[in-house]
């Protein structure tokens, strides 16, 4: 039993900073951006206050932030950074570099929309945009989950069978700036769960001479001294490690649950009222949270619907989802992001995963809440009812549907849209 006194009230950003402290990170490099900034402010405070023995590199850009993390990690220490939106996109080149060098960096993305036009409010566009860079990617729904997932992320990323950088994502403002109860764990207990980093790269060890990341040819190179892999082999190895990491993600989640008494579904997805469901809402982060309300209301009306809140997005848990949805009739996907010119990213990823299932459920995707537009349960419920109707008629819409648009109130724009 835990008493209320063990909990503290804090924002998602501060939960992330506390996890950083708990993980005893050694180097932090970050650049301020809304809504991530309070993470770095809090970590700076921990360091200057003597609560965290780490070096803070107060860089002049996000590109430099992640580069400093890459270099520090390759030198042999545990590192952390956090960013949002444009900051994440400025890091794009180095995201690929971090993954290619197999560096167990943990980064928080306080998710925010991407301009233009300027917007500082939440959606999931930034996080989904970097899905192909070779990082593990996990989503959170509350501040405790941010704290817990960050601790797990280090253990996953640093596992010798993995060595892959890891994103832990949470919604800007909705979590980053909202206070909730968070239980912070005692240092000793965290240390038992998360041993010090044992890195495969250690430039700081002067007894070992290393050349990290030289030019690598298309083909393997055979010489008297030995055979060097080509770029293709390196990238194959990255893909295999990410694919296989799903076992480690689950294992670490279960270990964490055993030690700290908190779990998040099976570590890969969380369910809500899904036991006897015939249809599902499929979503991440803030949209999944809001869907819980929608599901309660739909259940009151007798709709047998449940929620699948995806926690692990990369590696995409194809096998788990095929099994999970093997009897599903209908899945409604709410994307707070969009693959422009196609449809919601989460939606098409799910469609692709279930294409080779024996049972192919009807999947209906909607776009919701871009740029911080409020996502409310009523809108989601409307979406579900329309999806039920479409499924009955087996009717696919050609165009991507946006929920919560207010075109009616913009006379001048209506002509353009038509």
């Amino acid at each position, binding site marked *: 039993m835990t008493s209320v006194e063990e909990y503290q009230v804090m924002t998602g950003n501060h939960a992330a900073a506390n996890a950083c402290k708990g993980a005893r990170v*050694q*180097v932090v*490099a970050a650049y301020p951006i809304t809504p991530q900034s309070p993470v770095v402010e809090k970590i700076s405070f921990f360091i200057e206050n003597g609560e965290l023995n*780490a*070096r803070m*590199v*107060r*860089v*002049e*850009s996000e*590109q*430099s*932030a992640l*580069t*400093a*993390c*890459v*270099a*520090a*990690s*390759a*030198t*042999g*220490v545990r*590192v952390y950074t956090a960013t949002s939106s444009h900051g994440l996109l400025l890091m794009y*080149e*180095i995201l690929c*570099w971090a993954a290619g060098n197999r560096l167990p960096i943990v980064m928080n993305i306080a998710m925010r929309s991407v301009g233009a036009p300027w917007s500082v409010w939440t959606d999931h566009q930034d996080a989904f945009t970097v899905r192909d860079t070779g990082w593990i990617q996990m989503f959170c729904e509350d501040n405790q989950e941010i704290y817990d997932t960050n601790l797990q992320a280090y253990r996953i990323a640093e596992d010798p069978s993995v060595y892959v950088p890891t994103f832990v994502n949470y919604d800007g403002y909705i979590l980053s700036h909202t206070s909730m109860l968070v239980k912070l764990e005692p240092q000793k207990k965290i240390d038992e769960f998360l041993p010090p980093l044992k890195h495969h790269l250690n*430039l*700081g060890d*002067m007894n*070992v*001479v*290393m*050349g*990290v*990341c*030289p*030019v*690598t*040819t298309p083909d393997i*190179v055979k*010489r008297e*001294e*030995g*055979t*060097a*892999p*080509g770029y293709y082999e390196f990238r194959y190895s990255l893909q295999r490690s990410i694919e296989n990491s799903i076992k480690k993600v689950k294992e670490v989640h279960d270990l964490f649950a055993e030690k700290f008494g908190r779990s998040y579904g099976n570590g890969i997805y969380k369910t809500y009222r899904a036991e006897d469901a015939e249809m599902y809402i499929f979503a991440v982060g803030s949209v999944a949270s809001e869907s819980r309300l929608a599901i309660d209301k739909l259940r009151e009306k007798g709709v047998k619907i449940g929620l699948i809140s995806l926690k692990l997005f990369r590696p995409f848990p194809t096998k788990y989802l095929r099994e999970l949805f093997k009897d599903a009739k209908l899945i409604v996907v709410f994307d707070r992001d969009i693959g422009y010119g196609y449809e919601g990213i989460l939606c098409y990823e799910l469609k692709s995963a279930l294409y080779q299932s024996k049972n192919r459920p009807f999947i209906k995707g909607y776009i919701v809440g871009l740029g911080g537009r409020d996502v409310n349960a009523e809108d989601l419920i409307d979406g579900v009812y329309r999806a039920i109707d479409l499924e009955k008629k087996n009717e696919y819409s050609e165009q991507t549907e946006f929920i919560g648009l207010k075109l009616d109130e913009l006379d001048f724009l209506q002509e353009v849209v038509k």
Partner: protein
Amino acid sequence: MADKVKLYDIPEEEFLLPGNRMCAGCGLSLIYRTALKALGPNTIITVPASCLTVLHGMQGFTSVDKISVLNTPFATVAASASGIEAALEAMGKDDEVTCVAFAGDGGTTDIGIQGLSGAAERRTNFIYACYDNEAYMNTGVQRSGSTPYGSFTTTTPIYGKTEHKKNMPKILEAHDIPYVATSCASYPLDIYAKFKRAKEIKGTKYIHILSPCPPGWGFSTKDTIKMGKLAVETGFWPLYEIENGKFSLSTPSKRLLDPAKRKPIEEYLSTQKRFNRLSNEDIEEYKRYINQSWEYIKSKNLTTQLL
């Protein structure tokens, strides 16, 4: 100020082995070989996209011995050094290990200037070495911020560059870092002395080394040393150090305070194909430019003497 170095002061131990991938007559090979001798084995070097990446060889095979290297994308070498240094501090190894960023002129004066300025402003404890071959040589001689006036490049193919080169050491000087120096591939003793001095100083150290490039500049591979010497002796590329604000001309450039001692700039410009198109007016412009830069040096020199 760097100590006077004699040839026998330079260690015989080699860190750059024979058989690297550089062009014949490459100024960078000479610079790197000498710099590594001064830096010694307890060094981590970080390198952005550049000819130096090529020098370091392909996956699995390198001509650089006993020194660890971290490659990093083009714009990021100073941030990379910042990360290495932060990790060394966290490990308590920052006193025993020297952290060096080694980049070309494009990676320094153009795409990397923001990161370098940031690292210098943060007083990062590292040496930043810029080898300046005055264009994007690794990608095939495109114009950089460090390309000199009138020079042919593949992106200034007809008229040549219409601006003078960016004075990067002056920009670093404005950061009030403890050590700024210029050097040149033709003066290995000078290179050795300056790297040795930089290694002894805590904080950000910047060394900018002119690196003659036979294919990029258009001269015979046997003339690399000659070209570097002419750059210095004509007064085009003054060698100096600024340590804690104290300016001092290095030996090869000292006597050039007297304009009569400088070789005519034509000797430098007329022996390189990249300057083929220079008109008489352009050469006059060069003379004006050199005089102006020496006026600045004189003022620095005078201030230092008064201090």
